[in-house]
Every structure is written in C-alpha cells, then in structure tokens.
C-alpha cells in the first residue's frame, strides 16, 4: 500500500467528519469542561447529531452495494506489512454508523437531563464523546487493527464510565472487572490478528478474505483465526463464560448502560463476526461453537433474569440473553438476521434502559423493584414508552422485536430443531421476566416509603423526548425486514446483500420453507410469548405477588437469584490462586530461594575468608614452618606432575 492515498470521492469529507466531530467534542469538553458547565452537554450532543447527519449523507450517497475506502495515512509498518489509518464505508458500516450516532445522540440528549445535578456533568460528556469516537473507529476501520483500536478504546471508555462515580470502590471494582474481562477477550483478538499476519501478511478485511478463500473451507488456520476472534467477541459481547462483567457494569449511570452496555458496544462482537463473515463461513466448526455458546448464553442469562429484583440487572441479563440470540443467529450463518436483531434490539433496549433510568430518576435513585409498583399512574409517558419497549422485546407483532426474533427462530427451525426449541424457550422466558418487570414497576400499588412517594415526578422534556422517539422507532423499525410471508422484499437483507454475498455462495443455502410452516412458527412464537405474559399477569397483577427478600430465598431460587454463584466460582478458581501464587513467588522464590542463593554466595565467600585468615596466626615460627612445608609440597607437586 502506498503512502497516504486520499480518495477524491465526495464521501471523503463526511467520512472523516463522522469520527472527527465527537473527537472535537471530546477535546473541547476535556479541556474546558469545567468552564463550560452545562453547555458541554449541548456541545457533545450537537457534535453527535452532526456526525449523525454525516452518516445520513453517506447512507444516501453510497451507491447501492458499493463500498468506499478512505485512507488517511500509514499508521505503522514493518517488513512488507503496512497498517494504515483507513476507513471502509459499506452498507454494514453505515448501518452501524446510523445506529451508533442516531441512538447515541438521543442518549446524549437524555443524559443532559439525567446527569443535570451531577458534579461530574462535563466529565460525563467528555467520556461519552470519547466513547462514541472509538465506537465509530471500531465500525469504520478497514482493517482489524483499526477495529482493535476502537475495540480497546470503547473498553477504556466503558471502564471510565462504569467507574464514573469513582468514590465508590464497588463501582471501581465493577469497572476494573469489565476492563480486565475485555482484556482477556482482546488477547484472543490479538492472537487472531497475529495468525492473519502470519498467514496472510495483511489485516485488511478484503485481503484477509481473499487469503482465506485461497485456503478453502474448514482449513485449520481459518478455524484457529475465527475461534481466536470469537474469544474477543465473547469478552466484548458478554457471552459465556466471560459475561459476568456486564451485569456489574450497571454500576455506571443509566444512560451509559443504555448506550454502551445495551445498544452499541456490546454488539461490537456481532459486528466483528458479521464483518469477517467470509472467514466464518469458511470455518463451519467455529460457527457450531458460536451457535452453541450463543444459545447457552441466551438461556442461561434468561433464567438468571427471572429472579433479579434490581430493575437494571434484569435489563442487563436480558441484554446478555438477546446477545446470545444474535450469536446463535450468526452461528447459523444468518449474518443479516443477526445484524437485523442488533438494530432492532438497539432501539428497544435503549428505550427500556432510558425508561428504567427515568423511573430511577423519578424514585430518586431507587432501583429495587420490590420498592416500586403502581408507577403507571404517576409517570405516564415513561410507562407508555416502557410498555412499548417491553412488548417489542417480547416479540409481539408488529413491534420491532418480533420481526428480527422471528427471523432468527425461523432460521433455527431450518437449521436444527433442538436449537429452535431452546431459543423459543429463552424468548418465552424473556417475555415472562420483562412483563414481570413491567408489572412490578408500574402496576398495582406503590410499595416504597412515603417520602419517596411524595416527590415521584415525570422526567423533564429532554429525557422524555428521546423516550418517545425511541418508542416510535421500536414500533416501526421492524418493517425494514418483513418476513417472506408478508412481503417479498426484505429491504434490510437486500441493503446488506452486497456484504454477505460471498459467504452466501460458500455456505449451502437452506431450502425455502413453505409459508404454512412459517405461519405455524410465527403462531407458536407469539403464542408462547402471550402465554408467559398471561402467566406473569396472573402472578404479579392478579395475585399481587412480590418477590421475597433475599434472605427468605431457598433451594433452586436461591441459586438462581445468586446468578448460579458464577462470580464466586471465578473468584475461587482464578482470582484467589493468582493472589496466592503472587505471594508464593515473592516470598518463597524471590526472597527465599533466589535472594538466598545470591546472599549465600557472598556469605560463603566471606566465611572462606574468615577460615583462611586463621592461618595468619601471628606466630613467626608457624609462618616459616608453613613456608617450608609449602615449598616441599609445591616441589612434590611439580616433580610428580612433570615426571
């Protein structure tokens, strides 16, 4: 690659502006945040809106199925390998761009209201802008190293934002946990890149794909690469066994949870796999692994979600579960279905989180659903929007969630009945705990203290506006991907088709299933959802049950409520041993063995000195005696050796 190729396309300007604007916002806020005060929030938001506009420009100007590469400069190179700062603009990128900047700017707007009274107001927006910048780098880069920059960058920002209230060490622990767990994944990512460099001598998506195609299907190298990258995805997208950081990440301010830990960052894993779809389609074994991991995560998280009482924790586990669903989709080679769910999920999950945030805001910080209830009467907008979100995630037509989820389930049905069963089960669970959440929060009567009850208030406009926009989106966005039974043009699929065209040719396309079959599937899905909703309604509205206090839990419930004690297990299996090892190394090996040896040498030497010194007895007689004796000995030695 030659140095600094500047594309003279009309897309150049918007392309570089998209990441640049948040960066500028970051710099401004970072340097002058204190002086700007609340203005900094508006600056950040406008910056993001501007880059959203640029994204739209790209969306409309990019020829269908076309792609553009914009090279800024060579970042670094060694031997014959060049790593450029370069952006790749294609439908997949633009999809992510729109989601990130669009939802991002809404959440920024929301945050202006949410963080209004926080003393770290400007700092918050500084981090938020930085996050968006890295997220954009992640999705726009044209090679894996660019992606890795974003990959680690968003990790950093999530670290900074989870630990935003840094006076609370528990939050800091959560932040550290998130960063380190991501690092574990990143090591996988790094190894994947090393393999690519080793075998393909490049990191550019297209060239890597070409190299991979030359190796052919099922090649061990590609399996290795894909698995390594998938480990990275596990860390970033909170899959088993690296998911535990995500629930803890709820320590951060709610908008952060909405933006980073629901809408954008956690979907980076899916994006990465979709981006390297060709590699993955060449490695069927990896796909199976992904499918299994995804399904398992989806169910596991859903089960834990059933018994959580912290409103944000429930959402967190639902996020993990949904991500599992997406991975399952990828595992079945249905990349665009996965991406489709990423998009829809981004909307309704952001909505749900922001709604939850508005609830917490209303209850002045209360997060335990056992202290809520009956809020529907007080905060109507929040309730309405939240309801929409809930329905959407539960997969009730015609809301967004339904279409994407149905698509995945359909694929699953074709692919493997068992998987289909499991996934439907998890989506049923989802419907249940989401409505449990809804009912516990909004219906029946308030269970909190009175002084809390007194100043329950609807959130200000800046917060409700985004809610409404998102609600609308969560209703309509599903229609970009209608199932075959309803329409013959799946606009989302067709938009992305150019990206996944090649992998389609590699993988055997499943036969088109009959419409009747599909109607049956849809029916089952919706039916299951409705049943579980009814069950939840019965349990929490009719019988007015409320979850028992933690102490009273017993048996399986206790295990589930305590997240199957995974954290504790990790603690025992990894953390404690390392600490032990550390002390062992320091005390035993370092201090005792090595240092002892070093000192032993010195000690022995001086002891020998002490010994020899005894010959110096001070008696001249002895001296002369020693002289003569040694003469004789030396003579003897000389003679016997010579002769």
């Amino acid at each position, binding site marked *: 690659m030659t140095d600094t190729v500047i594309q003279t396309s009309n897309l150049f300007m918007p392309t570089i502006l998209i990441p640049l604007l948040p960066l500028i916002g970051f710099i401004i806020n970072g340097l002058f945040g204190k002086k700007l005060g609340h203005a900094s929030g508006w600056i950040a938001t406008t910056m993001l809106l501007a880059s959203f506009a640029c994204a739209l420009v790209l969306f409309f100007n990019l020829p269908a199925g076309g792609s553009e590469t914009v090279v800024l400069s*060579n*970042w*670094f*190179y*060694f*031997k014959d390998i060049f790593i450029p700062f370069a952006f790749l603009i294609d439908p997949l990128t633009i999809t992510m761009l729109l989601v990130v900047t669009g939802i991002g700017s809404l959440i920024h707007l929301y945050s202006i209201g949410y963080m209004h009274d926080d003393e770290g107001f400007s700092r918050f927006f500084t981090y938020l802008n930085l996050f968006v910048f890295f997220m954009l780098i992640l999705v726009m880069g044209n090679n894996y*190293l660019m992606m*890795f*920059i974003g990959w*680690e*960058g968003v990790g*950093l920002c999530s*670290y900074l934002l989870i*630990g935003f209230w*840094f*006076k*609370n*060490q528990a939050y*800091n*622990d959560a932040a*550290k946990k998130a*960063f*380190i767990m991501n*690092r*574990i994944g*990143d*090591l996988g990512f*790094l*190894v994947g890149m*090393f*393999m690519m*460099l*080793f075998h393909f001598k490049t990191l550019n998506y297209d060239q890597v794909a070409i190299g991979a195609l030359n190796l052919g299907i099922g090649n061990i190298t590609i399996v290795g690469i894909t698995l390594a990258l998938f480990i990275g995805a596990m860390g970033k997208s909170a899959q088993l066994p690296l998911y535990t950081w995500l629930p803890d990440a709820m320590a951060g301010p709610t908008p952060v949870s909405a933006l980073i830990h629901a809408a954008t960052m956690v979907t980076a894993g899916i994006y990465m796999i979709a981006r390297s779809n060709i590699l993955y389609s060449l490695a069927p074994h990896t796909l199976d692994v992904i499918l299994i991991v995804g399904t398992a995560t989806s169910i596991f998280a859903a089960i834990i979600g059933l018994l959580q009482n912290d409103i944000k924790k429930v959402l967190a586990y639902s996020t993990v579960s949904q991500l599992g669903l997406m991975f399952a989709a990828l595992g079945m080679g249905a990349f665009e279905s996965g991406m489709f769910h990423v998009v829809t999920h981004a909307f309704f999950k952001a909505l749900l989180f922001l709604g939850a945030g508005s609830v917490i805001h209303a209850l002045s910080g209360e997060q335990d659903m056992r202290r809520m209830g009956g809020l529907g009467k007080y905060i109507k907008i929040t309730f309405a929007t939240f309801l929409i979100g809930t329905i959407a995630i539960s997969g009730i037509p015609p809301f967004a969630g339904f279409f994407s989820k149905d698509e995945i389930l359909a694929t699953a049905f074709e692919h493997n009945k068992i998987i289909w069963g499991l996934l439907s089960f998890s989506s049923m669970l989802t419907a249940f705990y989401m409505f449990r959440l809804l009912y516990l929060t909004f219906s029946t009567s308030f269970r909190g203290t009175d002084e809390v009850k007194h100043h329950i208030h609807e959130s200000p406009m800046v917060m409700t506006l985004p809610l409404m926009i998102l609600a609308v989106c969560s209703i309509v966005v599903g229609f970009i991907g209608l199932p075959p039974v309803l329409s013959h043009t799946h606009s989302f699929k067709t938009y992305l088709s150019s990206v996944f065209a090649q992998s389609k040719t590699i993988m055997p396309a499943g036969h088109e299933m009959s419409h009747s079959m599909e109607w049956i599937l849809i029916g089952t899905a919706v039916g299951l959802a409705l049943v579980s909703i009814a069950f939840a309604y019965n349990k929490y509205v009719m019988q007015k049950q409320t979850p028992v206090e933690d102490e009273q839990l017993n048996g399986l419930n206790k295990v589930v409520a305590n997240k199957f004690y995974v954290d504790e297990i990790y603690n025992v299996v990894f953390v404690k041993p*390392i*600490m032990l*090892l*550390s*002390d062992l*190394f*320091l005390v035993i*090996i*370092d201090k005792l063995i*090595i*240092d002892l040896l*070093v000192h032993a040498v*010195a000690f022995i030497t001086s002891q020998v000195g002490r010994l020899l010194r005894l010959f110096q007895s001070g008696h001249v007689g002895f001296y002369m005696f020693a002289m003569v004796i040694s003469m004789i000995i030396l003579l003897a030695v000389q003679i016997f050796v010579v002769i």
Partner: protein
Amino acid sequence: MLTLILLLIPLIASIIALFLRGELVKWFSLVATIVQLAFTVYVFTVFKTPDTTEVTKNLLSLNIDWINSPKINFNIGLDGMSLLMVILTNLLMPLIVLAGFNRNQERTHIMYSLMLLMHFALIGVFVSFDGFLYYIFWELALIPIYFISLNWGGVNRATVTLKFFIYTLAGSLLMLFGFIFLYWNTSSHSLSWVDLTMNHICSCKQGFIFWMFFLAYAIKIPIIPFHTWQPDTYSSAPTQGTMLLSGIMLKMGLYSLLRWLLPIVPMGTAEYTPYVIAMCFIGVVYASVIAIMQTDLKKLFAYSSIAHVGLIAAGIFALNVQGIQGGLVQMLAHGINVVGVFYCADIIINRTGSSDINTLGGIRVLSPRFATYFIIIVLGSVALPLTNSFIGEFMLLLGLFEYNSWAALFAGLTVILGAVYMLRMYQKVMLGDINENVTVFEDLKWNEELVLATIAILIFAFGIFPKPILELVAPISEQIYRLSFVR
C-alpha cells in the same frame, strides 16, 4: 564529529556543574540537557538526509587510534539503533533534570554533576563502536548512579546499593573476560564492531562467549532470576536515580543484546535461544504476578518494569525482524512510560509521605489534573492502542508468535496481568474515598506539570505517528537480523 560533540556536551556540562551552587546548577543542567536535545534533533536531521555519502558518514562517525596493543580504537558513530537510544537518553534527561526542581537535596551540584556524567557515559555506551571503548563507558555509567543512590537514597541504601553495584560489576567483569576472549579469538585482532561481525569465531567457543556477555546483560536488564537487586534498588534510590536506572540504564542491557551479542556470536545465540526465551517468558509472567500483590508503589513499578523488559528481551531473542524492530520501538516507549510512572510515584510519595498503596486513595478527588496525567501514563504502560507502547508490544508479540505461537500466547498474558496490577494500583491510590493519610494533596507544581504533560504528549505522539521512529530503526533491525540469523 557530530557524535563527538554529542558526547562532549554532557561531559563539559558535568564539569562546569561542579562549580555552580544551589538552584543555579539545576537551571544550568536543564539548559545543558536541552541544548543536547536540540543538537540531537539536528543530528537526526543530518542522519535522515537521503545521501549516505562519505560526507555524512564522516560527519557522524569518528575513528582514531587510541591504544596500539592490544588494539583499541576510539571508534564512535551513529546508526539507527544508536541514534534511537541517544534520542531516548536526550529526551529523558531534561525531564529527569526538571523533575528535580522544587525538591531540595543537599549538595545539589554534586548530584547534578554526577547525573550529567552519567548522561555522558550513557551516550558513550550507545555511540561507541569499539568493544573496549563500549566496555569502559558501560563501567563508567555504573559509578555515578551508584553514588547518586548511595548519597541521596532512602532507607538502608548502603546495603542495597552495594548489592546492586557488586552484582552488576560482577556481570560486567565477566563481559570483560568475554571481550578479551573475543579479542584473541578473532583473526583480525580488533574489537571494532564491524570486524567482530565480519569474522566468525568457531561455534565451540561461541557458546561460552555468549554466556559471558549474556550474564552481564541479564543482570543489567534484569532478566529473572538475576533481578533481585532491582526492586530494592529502585525503591531505595532517589527518584531521579530510579528514573535514570529504569528509563535509560536498563536499556543499555537490551541495546547491548542487539549490538554486542546477537550479531557477534550468532551460533552461540542460536544454540541457547530456547533457554533464554523460556527464561524471559517465565520472567514476564512471574514478575507480573508478583506485581499484582505488591503494596509498595515503587516496588510494584519495579516488578512491572521487569515484566516489560522481559518481554522486550524475549522479542529480541525471537530473532526475526519485527521482534527486533518491536524491541527497539518498545525500548523507547518503555523508557518514556517508566520514567512517567516513577515520577508519579515520587509525586505521590513526596506529597503523602507514604508509598504503601493501602494507605493511599481518593487522590483523584483532590487533584484531578494529576489523576488525568497518571491515568494516561498508566494506559500507556498497559499498551492501549494509540499509545506509544502498543505498537512495540504488538510487534514483539507478533515476533514471538512467529517464533512459537504457544509461547506468544503465554507471554501475551502480560496484556491481561498488566491491566490487572496497573488498574488495581490506580484504583487503590487514586480512586475511592479520600484516605485519612492524604487529607491534603497540593496541586501540581509548574515543573511537575511540565514533565507530566511532556510525557503524556510523547506517549500519544509516538503512538499515533510512529513512522519516523520505525523508519529510523527499520534498516538497522534488518541488518542485525541478517547478521545474527544462522541458517
């Protein structure tokens, strides 16, 4: 000729510094080092000029007879590698000098004169192309730092520094033996680098020579298990001494691996590389694991630096271009970062009087600016992309991966462990609620701010625009690779 000037500026400065007093000497040394830096930049431009005609060569290198038998020439010059190290040294020296402002030691003039003398010796080590000359500078560099640590050091400095001195001197005496051995075993009785790389010693002897040199370097770098002098020395030496030691002096060892070990005894290297790399790997993980539970700031950083240099050494011994190149780049990066962390440690200790991270905390509340600089440096040393040490670490790990993928995976653990101990440290020291020991934490002084800002800028500058450095070291690493790779 230019090289000679590079060499002379610090020497003359150190002599002058002896006759100045008080604050004046600090200012003088600052000016001197900055002049040196400026001159280095000029040399860099000369070096970069495309025409590598005799003119430039003669401008940069100088070779005059010094001692006739055994033949020793005063042979100094600059190639990419030396220039890189010279740049590192001259970049860090002003910062190290500046770090001393607003700190009052007694007998300042002697301390700064010693520092400048050390500067001279370090430059000498990096520019000398005659083995013996190099050896003299190598030894010379030891003396000032020893006295700096001995006179201005902390608790039980006498024993600690003595251990350090004897330990390193033992190594270098073995190296002296190695040089004598080389001298009489080469056909052309000379220790000039070019000759040494030219003529091939019989492989039976190479192994021995390898160890003679390697021990010296292993102690200096230090590679586990020759490291036990280091944490104590770092924690007991005065901060400027620690900066000199960790930032520049331990680079001497790494640099020497590339200059005086690999190309000169390639067969010996090839023979023992597996063991050495294994040693480095174990060292990397071992040191990182120890660092996780360290409670003393300086010791923690000491162990972390052991881990980092272990990785560099391993990458160098992987014997492939990106390993060597990455090693060189990483030397620069690590030099900057480690000086940064030790300076932060010093600021904290100087303010709170405690270096135990359990007795610290909440400093971020009191001094957000300092917190920002510190986090940047911490991120630099955990090799986040767009910081200086990322590229180096990436290339090192890549080189190791080519050498042996599993080994690379093992060494890659440092990516995780590094994050663990650094973030743990940062959390305990800076975050959380204000600890009762640190009720008052006055904000940064101008010189502290200046040093930290410079370091932060450097961290990003080399992370985002590494090209000049890479271009500087690319050819030489190719050359070293060619010389030291045995088919």
